[in-house]
């Protein structure tokens, strides 16, 4: 390509109008987004990282570098450690129930002809509703004296239980609400995954004498849903990891710190006690978890694209 006719040298030196136009238009179109992404994401992220090595407090005149002190304090802090345990416990409950429950419901709903869209709406309803509002309803529902759950519990012979004020059960109650909120979302994702499984695979399975419901599930549905399951699992764990609203509305971390979760503790440290440097270190830990999950998700998405 270096053998260029002399007449060409002229246009090779200058940029052609179409390229120039694309460069100018592209820059103009992308500039607001680029500025905003710097302002609300990249710069804050860098500031955050720096803050996590300081003893900055809001309103303080100066600050000094404290190295890894914040991180050391963090892992020595019983509250933080408990919040991590609680968060993982919460995820460990919500995740399997919301994923496998959603898969089970999705398969049942998918098979319904007339009532399918009815169930779809019913199970999805909690996803669109305002969680804070619905949490206050749950609080009332779980009220030991006034709520139907309390009444039911007495009728069934369990006696009066006060789920939200029982240190052993409060997190479980939050997890149940978490499942209630997210299961419809997962169900819809699974239904989308189910709808793209080719029918002839089931027919082939039937010819191979794998005609029963369990056989069909094990030979066709489960393997074909692999990528969807991966995706649902990771998005659900991110959602569960960020549990916050129900804690604020229902327990405020109690009773006895049994529902202190990562985000709730972070919120208190950063925006109630204004120990910014300490909270920044905590945020960095949160970020590490989220990035790890997102990287997993990227791999899952890659596989999903690959399958289809």
């Amino acid at each position: 390509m270096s053998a260029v006719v002399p007449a060409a040298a002229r246009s090779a030196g200058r940029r052609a109008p179409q390229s120039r136009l694309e460069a100018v238009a592209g820059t103009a179109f992308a500039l607001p987004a680029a500025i905003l992404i710097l302002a609300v994401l990249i710069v804050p992220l860098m500031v955050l990282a720096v803050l996590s090595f300081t003893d900055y407090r809001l309103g303080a005149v100066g600050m000094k570098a404290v190295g890894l002190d914040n991180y050391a304090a963090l892992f020595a802090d019983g509250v933080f450690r408990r919040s991590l345990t609680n968060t993982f416990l919460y995820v460990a409950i919500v995740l399997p129930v919301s994923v496998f429950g959603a898969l089970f419901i999705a398969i049942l709903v998918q098979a319904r002809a007339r009532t399918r869209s009815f169930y779809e709406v019913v199970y999805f309803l909690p996803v669109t509703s305002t969680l804070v509002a619905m949490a206050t309803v749950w609080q009332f529902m779980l009220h030991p004296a006034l709520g139907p759950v309390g009444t039911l519990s007495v009728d069934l012979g369990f006696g009066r239980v006060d789920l939200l004020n029982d240190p052993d059960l409060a997190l479980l109650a939050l997890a149940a609400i978490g499942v209630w909120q997210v299961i419809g979302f997962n169900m819809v994702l699974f239904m989308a995954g189910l709808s793209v499984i080719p029918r002839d695979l089931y027919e082939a399975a039937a010819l191979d004498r794998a005609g029963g419901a369990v056989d069909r599930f094990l030979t066709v549905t489960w393997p074909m849903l692999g990528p969807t399951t991966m995706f649902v699992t990771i998005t659900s764990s991110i959602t569960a990891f960020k549990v916050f609203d129900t804690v604020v509305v229902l327990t405020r971390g109690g009773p006895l710190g049994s529902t202190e979760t990562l985000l709730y503790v972070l919120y208190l440290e950063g925006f109630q006690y204004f120990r910014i440097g300490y909270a920044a270190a905590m945020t960095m830990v949160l970020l590490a978890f989220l990035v790890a999950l997102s990287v997993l998700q990227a791999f899952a998405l890659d596989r999903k694209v690959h399958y289809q």
Partner: protein
Amino acid sequence: MRARGLVLPLASHAVLATGAVVMLAPFLWMLLTSIRPPAEVFGTVFRLWPDNFWGAENYWHALTVGRLPRTMLNGAIVCAGILVVQLLVCIPAAYALAKLEFGFNRLLFGLVLVGLCIPIQVPALPLYIALAEAKLLDTYFALMAPFFLSVFGIFLFRQFFRGYPSEIIQAARLDGMREFEIVWRIVLPSARPAIAAFSVFSVVAHWNDLYWPLIVVTSGDLATPPLGILAFRDTETGGNYGALMAGAAIVTAPMVLAFLAARRTFLRGITMTGLK
């Protein structure tokens, strides 16, 4: 064979119906309580349907004693403001990323991908400090600013525009259109489904969001619906459950009704991502 053909659907219906009752129970309880007089709420005898219809009183109480209407208005303003800026920023940027060659194309897209895995809780501290320094806390701007940029929106629209036939864009260039005209005359009308889906995603997320408003709003004047419910509950401690349930119904109604009205768009919009 015949027997199983009958048993399985019945069992499946039973499971689904039981689940549906659990899913709907809070909604039903909310609505039933919201029309119950206080005496029946605290009564010892449980009746599903109230003896005395108290709906008017409860809803009137929720609308007048608390500041719910104001918080709903705030919610609408914040959601609309966020959505408008998001669309204005995202769509041109996404078009440029998808169809134009310019200097920092790859770099910007790389940042977008990074941004996809960072929720608001991460930059919240520095943003809060910046807003505090600028004396902008407790303003509509503070409520909206962190969300003006939706990396998810850029990502979504970029994917959509990449699928748009380049030949049509070339035809428009030959017809003499400039790039911004191509975006709003040619590409935008075809992007309506994507815009609708993204709008649902955005509005639902910010109407329901608690974390950020809880941080930047201190005065009641700017409370968003979730904050409004919290405040209303705290003023009604131990008291008027009927009105509280009426308030919850009022706050959650816009999203639920919109969902029932535009089910397909909603499902597409919200399931576009797990990053709720």
